[in-house]
């Protein structure tokens, strides 16, 4: 007996799952009433009555940015992505028309001030909703047939122009408009709210709340903001020298006299604050100082490190010397890293 009751209780819950979107639009709510009575102690035929009305369509949608902080980009970087989630909290399936834009000026989503427009602004719906932009599969530009209480991720994609400086900000905006779901595979017309008196069939009410300044209530559309901040590599070069030895004192307190060996260290430092601002293709050239002779026995050591202001002797052989010019290419220098080119001369 108890087992039966528990199954019934569980079934009573399962029978009407309360989704956040609520009762599906177009559902008929019917109220049945039964009256039992007796006359003269004799039970009479029970009387019943019922009345019904239709649940209308309540349009609610939200658009939120998935990026907890600004998206850091480098000048010239292509296909950089800001990610948003569009949620259909209506009690009906809908399509959503999507539009990206670049607000001009003002405070961007994560606090910076918008001061440039990126190039090639476009958007794509995340076809498998995994939050990763895959240009091969994420190609749709509107959301098709999104069910009640379902959501989909959308990518806004841009290319960053060259010539931007560290701290430059480009703001982006994604606007979503509720549209009729009509046929799968094509974007329906924008939903229009029912005006005038109620009808006996399903009517439509806009009930979404604007959550950002400029985001109007009850107009069937919502937007969210994102932003990109530029972090350019910031290279600086310094050249230091030390006397290694002289013919008289060797390496003990060597003096700058003819025949002394002098070591030059050219240190290239990348002071960028962002980990993806990596300097590449670094070519260093240096004219040999006057009155010196290139020491080919030592050669040129590349990609050494520094300890404070001291150049460590940990570079590897490379580079070339010709016509009085020392040349070498350094490997990529990441943010906060310094790499050196080291060579030696003898004083004439």
């Amino acid at each position, binding site marked *: 007996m108890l087992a039966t009751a528990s199954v019934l209780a569980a079934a009573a819950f399962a029978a009407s799952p309360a989704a956040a979107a609520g009762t599906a639009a177009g559902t008929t709510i019917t109220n*049945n009433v039964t*009256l039992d009575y007796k006359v003269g102690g004799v039970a009479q035929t029970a009387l019943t009555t019922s009345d019904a009305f239709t649940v209308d369509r309540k349009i609610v949608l939200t658009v939120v940015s998935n990026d907890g902080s600004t998206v850091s980009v480098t000048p010239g970087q292509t296909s950089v992505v800001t990610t948003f989630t569009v949620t259909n909290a209506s009690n009906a399936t809908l399509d959503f028309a999507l539009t990206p834009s670049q607000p001009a000026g003002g405070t961007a989503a994560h606090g910076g001030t918008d001061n440039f427009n990126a190039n090639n602004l476009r958007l794509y719906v995340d076809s498998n909703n995994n939050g990763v932009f895959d240009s091969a599969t994420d190609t749709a530009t509107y959301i098709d047939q999104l069910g009640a209480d379902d959501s989909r991720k959308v990518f806004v994609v841009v290319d960053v122009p060259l010539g931007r400086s560290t701290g430059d900000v480009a703001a982006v905006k994604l606007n979503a408009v509720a549209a009729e779901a009509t046929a799968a595979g094509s974007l329906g017309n924008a939903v229009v709210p029912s005006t005038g008196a109620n009808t006996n069939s399903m009517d439509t009410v806009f009930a979404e709340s604007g959550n950002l300044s400029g985001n109007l209530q009850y107009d069937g559309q919502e937007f969210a903001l994102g932003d990109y901040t530029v972090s350019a590599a910031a290279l600086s070069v310094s050249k230091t020298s030390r006397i290694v030895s002289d013919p008289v004192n060797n390496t003990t307190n060597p003096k700058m006299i003819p025949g002394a060996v002098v070591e030059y260290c050219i240190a290239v430092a990348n002071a960028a604050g962002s980990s993806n601002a990596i300097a590449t293709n670094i070519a260093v050239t240096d004219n040999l100082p006057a009155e010196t002779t290139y020491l080919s026995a030592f050669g040129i050591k590349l990609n050494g490190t520094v300890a404070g202001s001291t150049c460590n002797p940990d570079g590897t052989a490379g580079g070339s010397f010709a016509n009085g010019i020392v040349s070498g290419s350094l490997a990529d220098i990441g943010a906060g890293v310094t790499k050196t080119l080291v060579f030696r001369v003898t004083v004439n």
Partner: protein
Amino acid sequence: MKIWLAILALVAPAAAFAAGGNVSLSSDVFVERVKPGPDGKPAVVREAPGVVTPGDKLVFELGYRNSGAQPATGFALTDPIPESVTFAGSESPGATFSVDGGKSWGPLASLKVRAADGTARPATRADVTHIRWSFAQAIPAGASGKVSFRGVVK
């Protein structure tokens, strides 16, 4: 500051009416909203269920009349809560409830709901599946009355 809530005239509700034998029965459902009244202040309005969306508040009114020449006994009005509605209280006095689809009845405070793992917890308004008024006394000839309760559209 007092806020005046005025109940405006009833607009024709979703109504149903049945008569048979010596009794008649009516069922009316209203949607209750707060709207600016004629003086601009918020007023509670009861309307026919025109535009109804999830979350809307409903008022159910059941009317009865003994139109016969003899008193009627054993009067019982039973109303299963519609599937897309959550019972929300404010029921007329004397109601009993069921949370198990009409198998057992009692005051809400005495009812329990069993979870799938067998543990029992006190039933809440959201668990109510049926509401009933059983009149202990006879309804005299010609007498009529109304009972009501509230619900919310899921």
